[in-house]
């Protein structure tokens, strides 16, 4: 049951973020300067017709789910300092944040799987080299390093480049933990009866890894993914918060939150915190899923009892 709720939640949120272009009433960069920090628009009904202040809300007009003819505006979650719709920006921002989370998780799991398998399967000096290298990686003060690196990067990073850079950085930094877990699984798998038997029949390393060892790691990887994705979404938030993420005017949850960190925003314009709230159901969904997977180890490792 809990699994269904979690999965349902995730599906709904992912769908909403994917369809931002349709669901959001405005483009993320559209400025309405006369409405700087406008509070959420009041929506009310006259009969069955919804109105945003005095203007009727129109549905399915101009390729958007809903909208208001100018000079009316509809800001469901208020507007930011340049009069941009926070609701639209949160939806569009989710695309960057989510893609970062998924992309970075894929990179770090891929790297983790590769190095972890190598290190666990071959052992010896390869194992020591990889694991000590990993520890070195963990010990680096990444945040300061990134701040320094930013100063050397070309100033003209387009948003797309910044995005890939962000994904690559976050993904590369995080390979050590999955690699250690995979190594543990591989180490124990190496000594299992069926692996030893296969080896006795003359199976080579590539065959053993592909056929017998990798299938054992899937469960661990899946659980790791459900933990890492929300972690990386938050990492994007942190990096953008520090000005290392995608640049204006493209939104991400991180740079949206960075805007809300000012005193006056907290006091006078609390709707600027909407992106913070938007992350909650998404992270909750992923973490619930991770929880369920961790509680049921038999689901994790279907081949475990062979």
């Amino acid at each position, binding site marked *: 049951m809990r699994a269904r709720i979690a999965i349902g939640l995730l599906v709904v949120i992912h769908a909403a973020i994917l369809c931002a272009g349709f669901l959001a009433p405005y483009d993320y960069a559209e400025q309405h300067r006369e409405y700087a920090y406008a509070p959420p628009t009041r929506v009310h009904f006259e009969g069955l017709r919804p109105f945003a202040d005095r203007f009727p809300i129109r549905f399915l007009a101009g390729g958007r789910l809903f909208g208001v003819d100018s000079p009316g505006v509809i800001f469901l979650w208020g507007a930011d*300092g340049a009069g941009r719709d926070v609701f639209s920006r949160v939806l569009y921002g989710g695309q960057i944040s989510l893609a970062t989370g998924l992309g970075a998780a894929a990179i770090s799991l891929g790297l983790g799987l590769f190095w972890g398998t190598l290190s666990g399967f071959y052992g010896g000096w390869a194992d020591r080299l990889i694991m000590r290298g990993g520890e070195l990686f963990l010990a680096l003060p990444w945040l300061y390093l990134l701040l320094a690196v930013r100063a050397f990067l070309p*100033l003209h*990073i387009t948003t797309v480049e910044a995005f890939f850079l962000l994904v690559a950085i976050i993904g590369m930094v995080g390979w050590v933990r999955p690699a250690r877990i995979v190594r543990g699984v591989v180490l124990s798998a190496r000594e299992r009866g069926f692996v030893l038997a296969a080896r006795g029949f003359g199976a080579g390393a590539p065959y053993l890894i592909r056929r017998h060892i990798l299938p054992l790691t899937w469960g661990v990887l899946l659980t790791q993914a459900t933990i890492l994705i929300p972690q990386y979404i938050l990492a994007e938030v942190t990096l953008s918060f520090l*000005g290392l993420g995608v640049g204006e005017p493209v939104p991400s949850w991180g740079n949206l939150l960075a805007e809300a960190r000012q*005193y006056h925003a907290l*006091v006078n314009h609390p709707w600027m915190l909407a992106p913070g709230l938007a992350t909650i159901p998404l992270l909750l969904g992923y973490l619930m899923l991770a929880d369920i997977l961790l509680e049921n180890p038999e689901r994790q490792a279907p081949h475990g009892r062979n």
Partner: protein
Amino acid sequence: MQVVRTVYLTITLVWLAHALPDDRLMLSGDVGSRGGRLVSAQRIEPKTLNWLYASDVSSREVLQRLMADLIHINRQTLQPEAALAKSWKGSADGLHWVLELREGLKFSDGEPFDADDVVFTFQVILDEKAHSPQRDLLILGDKPIAIRKLGRYRVAFDLPQAYSVADRLFDGVFILPRHKLEAAYKQGKLEQAWPLTAAAGDVAGLGPFRLKEYVAGERITLERNPYYWKVDQAGTQLPYLDELTFLFVGTEDNQVLRFEAGESDIVNRLGARNFAALEKSRRSGEFNLVNVGAGLEISFLFFNLGEPPAGASAELKAHLAVLRRTKFRQAVSEAIDRESMVRTIYLGRASALAGPVPPGNRYWIDGKLKAPVRNVARARRLLESDGFKWNREGKLLDPAGRAVEFSILTSSNNAERQQLARLIQDDLKQIGIQVSVTPLDLRSLLELVQKTHAYEAAILSQASADADPNPDIPLWLSSGVNHFWNPEQKRPATPWEAEIDALMRRQLVTRDYTERKRMFDRVQEIAVENQPLVALVSPNVLVGAKKKLGNFRPALLEPCTLWNIEQIYWRGAGTGVRP
């Protein structure tokens, strides 16, 4: 009992008034009562108490309370006033100045003050071996000014060349106690003297307060200087306050929070949004929030007009070639909507700028410059006449057919400048220019602008230290370090920069105000014609203080709120306002 106490108090006061030095300075303003403690939250911790090596704002903020200068610029009237020097006289050619010092004054440790201290101070500042950054203030045309002692309370200064406002030179040049620092100076250890951790008894000055205690990372507390040389109209020795505490809180937001919570009593230079938030605060009845009006700070966009740096990419070179076109810069200026900046970012509490001098500087602004109005049509005409075209998607193409784009650097910890950049980005998009905004920490930004020159455009703010144009000379002269668009040139790169150089140098030695004003007006006009820096807005000076503070008279010039700290008092002091 009451009578006895009153009589006793009167006698003490009369005795005190007579015991005070003859040359004390009487200040006008409300007569207050002594006692109480004032707390001010600062953003950043000072770096040193040694004025000779203090180049950061936060150190100066504290030192201004501990030290005094010979001639001081009144922060409210913006005119020079007698301080440690009670009078001064210049020769007809303006090269020789004689200053009469106040007699019988004492440093905060009780040691007497005389001409030897003044001579010592100028000697160490000007000593090249002492490496004091303050030395630059006393160099005119590459030569230092000279000082001579004429008597115990009389000194003479000889300037190497005529200087338009010689009396203003002395503002902020704090007189140091020879008896405390001479030994360190002789041993060549002046730079190590008076760190923040110095013992309270080691630091002495002529300011209204003296050091009491410093707690690293938290606060610095000053106490009343019992030997201070200013009195109020009733003859009471100033300052009124017993103690002054500076808390270090890190950010403007924290300053505002502390102020709102009542943990600090005074707040300097608020952002417009924070000011509005405080106005709406539940406790706003306890504060005096003052909009002092247009200040002396300007925010401006400027372009890299220097030669491309060695090893610059072809892309950067192409972008810089476009930025070098005067008509392009004029078009950018025309396309920027300054009024909406004032409205959305500053809630109307700022002025849109026509030129590089803010309206707050009423003595020097060129009134002939027209108020800036956004004119996209004119921007397009300007670009067209310079060979720019638009492609089918509406993107602007330079005469070589490349899409026009550039990046703007802003400081990542200044929200207002980032918002300015965001509005510019949108404004310029409407004439087809693609702008990317790159937030960087201020240090990396200045490194790029002043050292490596590998950037295209940036937004910065500058607050003048004085209403007079002379302190801004490093901005105007092509050889200046703050000539942001092309700093430290060997020879002026363009005819208009040469003209600015000539005008600024000429006004520097001219003593007639109208004559100087005419020259500086021309400088402003040249700047507007060529737009090396596109002046954007000048924020108003917004400050706040507890309502119970008497003599709170905020000024336009830094330090806006604490400039008259010796006169600030708690109304109803003694009734337990602050422990």
